[in-house]
């Protein structure tokens, strides 16, 4: 990391922590975000000159609090001016005593506040895309432009989405609170879904040129790490982090030099990040220990990812275990994408005829390029080359990204009669 990157990283990480506490004390997301943003700008101006302060979080916290009170005083002297986007009741502006302004919260308070923020951002009364945007903005500390780039939408669209979300939080009074034990499982599921969605969006961008948008994958892992820090006792949190690390560990081998995707079977496994795989395995073991025999769905998915990540070679993959894990996942909830992966694993275990039968048993997948590509592979294995080519052509027509289309085109060329 260059000194500039390290500085930016420090501001971003500590700024996110300062924000969580400031939201609680100010009672307004917008006001707190603006204040932390102002403090970050001030840090970017002074730190390169004066050096990073000994306690950067304290510096940012005190600066942000001063900025917030400045803003509140400015609002207060403008008659009839409502704190429009902050919504709710205009806060009373007391003259803050210097001790309050200079106060630095201990780590435990910051952690509690971040946990509150996690559950507020992922509250089920917010639309999923708003939850995702809020989590990246407030918990990960990404700026609006970066989030917009990550999801391939114009910056103005993302800014509007965030503004609406803040308005809803203020107007509907979405609480800034960790849910009760009774509510926690359902609410935690929503939090994990948000982080998982950020990660899957990075693996399979629904449009665009790149195979992997590194940013979002790293952001999802960063958020999962934060959750694991905040809730070390929750097995599904540990499992999600393990799952993301297993997947990210394969990243160096997932695309070739031309930027095209490399199928799992053809990846150079020596290029996988084996340190990350080791960490993921340890996290998964801890999740298993803590879940007392009841595997959650992220634990099952992490086990699946572990099967691939720990196989020495593609031919060593334990397909029987993989099919069993997919069966367990499907018994929780019917999901065509999971059924598709299961069918491919059945083909690897029992041969192409069984794989094709399993694929053809799935309904509602005729619009999926992955389903057609899977059928093509099974048909090729059965020597039904003509039908395989036809299936590949259909996959090619439906594939959403250019790199995927290039991969399918290559397969089609390889399969053409000499």
């Amino acid at each position, binding site marked *: 990391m260059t000194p500039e990157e390290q500085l930016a990283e420090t501001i971003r990480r500590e700024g996110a922590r300062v924000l969580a506490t400031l939201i609680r004390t100010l009672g307004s997301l917008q006001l707190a975000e603006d204040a932390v943003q102002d403090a970050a700008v001030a840090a970017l101006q002074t730190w390169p000159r004066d050096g990073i302060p000994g306690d950067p979080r304290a510096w940012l916290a005190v600066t942000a609090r001063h900025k917030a009170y400045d803003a509140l005083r400015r609002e207060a002297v403008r008659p009839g001016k409502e704190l429009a986007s902050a919504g709710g009741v205009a806060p009373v502006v007391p003259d803050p005593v210097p001790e309050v302004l200079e106060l630095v919260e201990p780590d435990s308070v910051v952690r509690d506040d971040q946990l509150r923020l996690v559950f507020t951002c992922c509250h*089920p009364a917010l639309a999923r895309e708003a939850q995702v945007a809020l989590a990246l903005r407030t918990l990960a500390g990404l700026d609006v432009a970066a989030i917009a780039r990550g999801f391939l939408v114009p910056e103005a669209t993302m800014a509007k989405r965030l503004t609406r979300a803040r308005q809803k939080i203020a107007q*509907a009074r979405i609480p800034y609170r960790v849910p009760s034990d009774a509510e926690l499982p359902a609410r935690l599921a929503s939090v994990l879904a948000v982080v998982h969605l950020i990660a899957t969006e990075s693996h399979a961008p629904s449009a665009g040129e790149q195979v992997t948008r590194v940013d979002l994958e790293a952001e999802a892992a960063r958020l999962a790490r934060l959750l694991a820090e905040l809730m070390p006792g929750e097995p599904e949190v540990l499992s999600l982090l393990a799952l993301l690390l297993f997947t990210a560990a394969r990243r160096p081998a997932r695309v070739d030099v031309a930027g095209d995707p490399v199928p799992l079977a053809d990846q150079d496994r020596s290029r996988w990040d084996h340190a990350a795989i080791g960490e993921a395995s340890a996290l998964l073991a801890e999740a298993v220990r803590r879940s007392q025999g009841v595997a959650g769905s992220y634990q099952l998915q992490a086990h699946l990812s572990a099967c691939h990540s720990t196989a020495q070679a593609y031919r060593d993959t334990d397909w029987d275990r993989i099919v069993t894990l997919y069966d367990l996942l499907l018994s929780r909830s019917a999901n065509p994408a999971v059924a598709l992966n299961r069918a491919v694993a059945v083909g690897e275990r029992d041969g192409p005829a069984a794989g094709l039968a399993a694929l053809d048993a799935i309904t509602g997948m005729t619009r999926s390029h992955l389903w057609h590509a899977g059928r093509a592979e099974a048909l090729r294995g059965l020597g039904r080359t003509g039908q395989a080519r036809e299936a590949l052509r259909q996959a090619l027509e439906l594939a959403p990204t250019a790199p995927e289309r290039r991969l399918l085109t290559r397969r089609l060329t390889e399969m053409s009669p000499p």
Partner: protein
Amino acid sequence: MAVYAALLYLPEGSDSMMPEVRKEHGVFGAAASEVIRGAVALYPTGSATTITVAGGPGGDVMVTDGPYAEAKEILIGLYLIEAADLDEAIGWAARIPTAWRGKVELRPVRPIGGGAS
């Protein structure tokens, strides 16, 4: 005597809190003060949350963002609920029988009068 609910509709995005509109409501309120039994102004639909309960009383509570707008179901009434925050309001909404027979839409009431909204 009978009691009627007058339900107020405006095109999405129109400003129901414009000074001119408020003044008109003030004029109506004064003229109708003897017959008005209660009135609230609502925040825009962006602040709405829809609640359904699966199965019956005590079933799984489904919470979704946004108003409930489907021609297949019709407005049959309303409760005004005072709650500390949205979670508390959702807790009550999930106990309204309509939550398992249809849908309950929660819309925060905006304060009227005074300067700030």
